[in-house]
């Protein structure tokens, strides 16, 4: 070991090269041993390699496309699709274009993702809180559920739930004997059938009242906050808003003379007709994705609540806040900071896992554009670009929104 006193040789020697003959090599060596220039050299090298690689695969792709006699264009989107889709949120028939089919697929993906996120969040928070409950039995039941769900593949769960929906629920004919709620909502292996509300003349007033109630609640909440900042008095904003949002439309509904009809499902032949239908594929995918993601969210919520120091509870109770307000104003805002980032990635995972729909025949974007359209047109490259572009857009926008929210609730440090 060299002692500390020994003068170390300077790292960047400024001495002129001893042998002028090897000046060029020394220059290169000096450039290499200088941290800054080495960084620049390394980056130039990396970028050059990347571009060489990209150029290589692009030239391969062009050569391959030429060999197969294919062209790169998105014209096929305007051709008729010639295939049927079992769940369509917008008008669609087999004569519609591939573009329309893709749009239907995208909407199907989005609808199952949004419904899944809502149900999974609700179940996940419920399970997370139950997992922390002082009750040994309930806590351990939730633990078993969470561990079992987290440790089995989601595709398997989707197939299992789909199998249960198709095999365990009654056939439409039998559903009139069992598997219905008061003969209005029928649970069958062809889907869940419920009455569909049909708005009639004057229903616009109800919608208008609903919008007015929401806008009014927001204004009221702002005013209440200002008032509380000024006077310290607290108003029960939540309950007043809730009453307004439910009450106003209800009054408008009654005043307009109940302008709402119902389309009841009725058994015709082998299946129900009319009413509002939830298809078995959607039901299976929605339930399976929600149950799966809820297990992960439960763990996140549990970790978030445990991360809050017990002293926060005690301090808040000590200054005289009630338990409810402690939870609302002290614990949850702090726990959300821990919960939101991993929660975002669970939402993203759910959206991405919805692509497994193809395994049970739910027509999402992967099944329409990436499946049948690809097979029919042979446009592998174009269809995959559309599918990947769609998922990237959705993922990046969800994370942008959640990042914005996360920034808003971030701890403001001095």
């Amino acid at each position, binding site marked *: 070991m060299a002692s500390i006193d020994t003068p170390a040789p300077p790292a960047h020697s400024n001495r002129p090269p001893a042998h002028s003959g090897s000046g060029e090599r020394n220059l290169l060596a000096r450039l290499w041993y200088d941290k800054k220039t080495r960084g620049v050299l390394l980056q130039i090298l990396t970028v050059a390699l990347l571009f060489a690689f990209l150029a290589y695969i692009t030239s391969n792709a062009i050569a391959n496309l030429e060999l197969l006699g294919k062209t790169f264009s998105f014209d096929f989107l305007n051709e008729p699709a010639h295939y049927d889709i079992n769940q369509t949120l917008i008008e669609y028939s087999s004569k519609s274009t591939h573009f329309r089919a893709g749009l239907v697929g995208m909407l199907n993906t989005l609808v199952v993702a949004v419904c899944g996120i809502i149900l999974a969040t609700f179940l996940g928070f419920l399970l997370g809180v139950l997992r922390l409950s002082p009750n040994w039995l309930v806590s351990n*039941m939730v633990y078993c559920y969470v561990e079992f769900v987290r440790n089995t*593949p989601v595709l398997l769960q989707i197939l299992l739930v789909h199998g249960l929906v198709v095999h365990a629920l009654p056939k439409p004919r039998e559903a009139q004997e069992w598997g219905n709620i008061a003969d209005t909502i029928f649970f069958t292996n062809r889907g869940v059938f419920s009455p569909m509300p049909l708005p009639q003349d004057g229903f616009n007033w109800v919608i208008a009242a609903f919008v007015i109630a929401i806008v009014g609640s927001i204004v009221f909440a702002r005013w209440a906050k200002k008032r509380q900042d000024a006077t310290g008095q607290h108003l029960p904003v939540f309950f007043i808003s809730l009453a307004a949002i439910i009450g106003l439309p209800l009054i408008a509904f009654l005043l307009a003379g109940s302008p709402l009809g119902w389309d009841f499902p009725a058994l015709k032949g082998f299946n129900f007709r009319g009413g509002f239908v939830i298809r078995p594929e959607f039901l299976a995918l929605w339930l399976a994705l929600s149950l799966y993601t809820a297990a992960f969210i439960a763990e996140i919520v549990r970790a978030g609540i445990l991360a809050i120091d017990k002293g926060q509870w005690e301090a808040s109770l000590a200054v005289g806040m009630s338990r409810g307000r402690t939870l609302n104003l002290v614990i949850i805002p702090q726990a959300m900071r821990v919960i939101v980032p991993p929660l975002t990635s669970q939402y993203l995972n759910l959206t991405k896992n919805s692509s497994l729909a193809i395994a049970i025949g739910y027509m999402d974007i992967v099944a329409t554009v990436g499946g049948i359209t690809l097979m029919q047109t042979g446009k592998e490259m174009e269809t995959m670009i559309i599918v990947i572009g769609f998922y990237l857009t959705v993922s990046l926008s969800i994370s942008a929104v959640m990042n914005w929210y996360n920034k808003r609730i971030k701890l403001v440090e001095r």
Partner: protein
Amino acid sequence: MSDASTTRKYPPGTHPDMPPPLLESGAIYWVRKNLLSSWTNVGLTLAGLWALWLIIPPFYEWAYADAVFNAADRSECQSLGDGACWAFIQERFKIFIFGFYPEAERWRTILTFALLFVAIGPLLFDNFPYRGKAMLFSLAYPFVAAWLLLGGFGLTPVGTDEFGGMLLNLIVGITGITFSLPIGIVLALGRASNLPAVRIICVTFIEFIRGVPLITLLFLASTMLSYFLPPGTSFDLLMRVLIMVTLFASGYLAEVVRGGLQAIPRGQYEAADSMGLKYWQSMRLIVLPQALKISIPGIVNTFIGLFKDTTLVIIIGLFDMLGMGRSSLADAKWAGLSSEVYISIALFFFLFCFAMSRYSLYLESKLETGHRI
């Protein structure tokens, strides 16, 4: 007091400890504290018991009491009992495990699997006998396994299209786990690098991988990858799947490791620099050991996710364990047994993944040095 004389037998201070009051210890205390401490708690207990009563007895009857373990087909099953028909699983068990691997060569897969434990043991446990020498075998294992499974050099060659069942899950899972960790670490270091070009490339790659579902990447591998190769060349579908699964997992691992890197205080980097360590030295000796230690739970979670995701290969037409189960449902002799098949396969995955998560807990406690960062 009347009984004062009996207690006075002990000199002061030597009285043995009295047992705690009956309601402060033992089973009654436990039940009161954990199940009946408040009215909400009593309600929860009742709700829990009710849920258990709804779930357990019917499931027990279905899965065991009324189940049929030996039968020739579905109708015989139904005549023998109205519970689960496990006879089907028994008949298909071998195909679930080995897929289409030739019957005469199956000893090779079993040997590969047995050797896996020899190879993995020294990596997992410190006190493995002859650990140093066994590590050499671990290094050679991938080649040995590839030779045993694929054949050649004296063994009958077996095509990768004959791989299937649990074998396929294990091949994809273990290959992905082995190769994604180093790639993920390199990507994480690249993302944390102060060279902008390197950082941008790594960020783009990671965000792309994390932004799309694995299915689309697998579709990419099965339909599009051959376009990017020189005309006339193509390589094995399984190989393409392995590459995609590895890249996919490495994108997620990179983010996990990045979290670990960010948790290391700046002082550690600066201390390493001031010791005169070069970049790779300081990473290898100072930063990564600490960063990886805190990322263990995340890394293992990613591995578990990867292993579960190996089932997605059925979407592009490979037959893993789930694929075998699903295709066997089409057998008219055994129609309508999806629950039996899926529950057995779920059990298999549960055992593997649960074991992995327990190991991660063990590893965390082993590496815990007391001062958390």
